[in-house]
């Protein structure tokens, strides 16, 4: 932790110390301020990464954009303020109220949910931890890694899964623990470590950044379950509900197999659509009102951001540098054998 980070953490604690516990009504604070405050990574391609123009893009960024569009309506997806944070400081800053949604490839675990005052709001990507090694090492299985030096990011479930995996298999290793993902990658690339470990999607993204990507391979084993999703503070249920149901509206639309974006203009006026579609778009009923939002909350989220499938294909799918095909993966819809499943919007 650099000195500046110590200071930041310290101010976060001061905020905890002095701030009254009236950080409960995040929605009205957000409406007053006019934007959604969103904690993202410091640069993970496909999930949250600045593009060439400096705009944040990625599947995690889209969750925040969708929430903003659901709250602010047309053009609302631009009303997001992004806070890039390291893995280590992400929860402290969320609980201290520096931002209101943490959408930063964060794994849902019991201790995070129950112990540090967080609420997890669904899953936008099912991941699992893997290992990347140089091909020259001649290793084909993670079980051949006894005695290796492993580069890993601090403050992650990765660090714990790594310990579990090596202990369970009776192997020894040397963890080399860095604070930033870029430092982990640089140390691996230079040869300080034999192995790079993080979530497999992360490895796919990181591999593209290496000097010679073709010289490296991701081993077959997946050593953990990593359900990633948006996180909010515990104790503000209405706000958590908005985040949860906005994500699930995008998933539902993907399940229905309908088009989002501009095509919605035709769908919303089409009286032959099913009651479910009409309910989601706010043509019938007032689902948005239950959330404290406008009737057309889901309409604008889908209009500005697209549905879950659009998000996936745009940022991490087969035609992106990450090339993580959706079909056959846990991130396929439940009707196609995947795990992506939304509770009913009614």
């Amino acid at each position, binding site marked *: *932790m*650099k*000195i500046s980070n110590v200071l930041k*953490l*310290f101010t*976060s*604690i001061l905020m*905890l*110390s*002095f*701030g*009254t*516990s009236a950080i409960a009504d995040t929605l009205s604070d957000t409406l007053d301020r006019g934007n959604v405050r969103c904690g993202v990574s410091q640069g993970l391609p496909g999930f949250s990464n600045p593009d060439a123009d400096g705009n944040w893009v990625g599947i995690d960024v889209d969750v925040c954009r969708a929430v903003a569009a659901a709250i602010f309506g047309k053009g609302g997806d631009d009303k997001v303020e992004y806070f890039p944070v390291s*893995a*280590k400081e992400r*929860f*402290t800053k969320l*609980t201290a109220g520096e931002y209101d949604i943490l959408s930063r490839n964060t794994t849902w675990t019991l*201790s*995070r949910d*129950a*112990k*540090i*005052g967080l609420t997890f709001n669904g899953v936008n990507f099912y991941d699992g931890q893997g290992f990347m090694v140089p091909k020259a090492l001649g290793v084909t299985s993670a079980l051949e*890694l*006894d*005695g*290796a*030096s492993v580069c890993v990011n*601090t*403050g*992650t479930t990765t*660090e*714990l899964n*790594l*310990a*579990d995996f*090596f*202990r369970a298999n009776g192997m020894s*290793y*040397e*963890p*080399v*623990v*860095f*604070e930033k993902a870029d*430092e982990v990658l*640089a*140390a691996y690339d*230079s*040869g*300080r470590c*034999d192995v790079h470990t993080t979530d497999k999607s992360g490895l796919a993204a990181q591999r593209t950044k290496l000097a010679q990507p073709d010289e490296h391979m991701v081993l077959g084993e997946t050593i953990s379950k990593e359900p990633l999703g948006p996180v909010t*503070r*515990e*104790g503000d249920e209405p706000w958590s509900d908005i985040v949860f149901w906005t994500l699930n509206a995008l998933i539902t639309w993907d399940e229905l197999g309908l088009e989002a974006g501009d095509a919605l203009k035709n769908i919303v006026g089409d009286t032959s659509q099913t009651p479910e579609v009409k309910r989601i778009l706010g043509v019938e009923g007032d689902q948005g009102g239950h959330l404290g939002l406008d009737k057309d909350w889901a309409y604008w989220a889908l209009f500005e951001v697209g549905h879950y499938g659009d998000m996936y294909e745009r940022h991490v799918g087969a035609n992106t540098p990450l090339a993580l095909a959706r079909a056959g993966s846990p991130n396929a819809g439940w009707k196609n054998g995947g795990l992506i499943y939304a509770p009913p919007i009614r």
Partner: protein
Amino acid sequence: MNIRTDIIKPPKQDIFKSGKFRSIVVQIIVMVLVIGSIGWIINNAATNMAANGISHGFAFLWETSFFDIGYLPFIEHTASHTYFNAFIVGLLNTILVAVLGIFLATIVGFLVGIGRLSNNWLVARFCGFYVEALRNIPLLLQLFFWYHAVLRVLPRAKNSLNFGDSFYLNLKGLFLPKPIPEVGFNYVLLIGVFSIISIIFLYFWSKKRQALTGQQFPVFYASLAIFIIPVLIVSFLNNTPMYLEDPVLKGFNFKGGIRLIPELVALLLALSLYTASFIAENVRSGILAINKGQIEAANAVGLKRIPILRLIIIPQAMRVIIPPLTSQYLNLTKNSSLAVAIAYPDLVHVFAGTALMQTGQAVEILAITMSVYLTLSITISLLMNWYNRAMKLKDS
């Protein structure tokens, strides 16, 4: 004559007008306010954390840590040890780098400081350049330079630089042979201890003799002889009961021997060379503070250069040097927390880093970490103040 007795009478004691009383009252009020606001902050933090569902308290220290630590020169730590054990590991690693750093910085600092006053043009200029270059570049940058620029160009483990099949240098560190005692080593140890005790006696005897007769005794060479000769003889009689375990490349890493990880080396180099530049200036100012007459007088008595430095200059200069030297030692110890930038598992990295993240108990962990640095600093201060008193001019 009428004497007005009411004027001579001492004024009535009004307790509220007494300056002493008022100052005590003010002090009590200020103290109550300070303690009260600290209590309010603590209470408020605890309430807020409870309201937000964040767990607090120090019970987490006895929970299983579930993470491993990369560098364990002293005690063991595995994923099944507690957070408290991780804390101790981090603390020991911090102390290791602080002690080694202070040792190196002092040696380099004294050499450079004395060198800067040398009559040799080249030596003086080089030392001047050293000081100006190193103290004017931020420490973090120097740390990155050593770690990312210097130590990262070393070869990978398979192509290690090999020095006589005993010393290996590669990206994963410096590997040295490890001395391992065998049967009979205890005799060598015993004779070594005896030699050291005799050397202490010799030292006091020679001091006494010099005070009585004025004759000097070559204590240094005699001590060397007293130590080395018996130890060598006993070792030989016991068939040298010590062997060197060479590091051997097995799989990914070297096994056996002693290992210095590159993170430790980079941190040590950066900390000690940087701090040495400040110590050098302290040393120079200490030496320059000595009256020129002292040296001239020593010359007049016929003392040679080295005894002048050792007996006249350094003891007097130390009085000027020690107080700022203490500050530099404190700086070095605190700066060792930059370890986190290059993955050296020190206290901040392991405890205020990984442990903080896994438990989420930022307030408790940072409080503990800050108290540890405070304790370390106060310990160094006390030791140095004690040393300072010992070196002080004594009134007699």
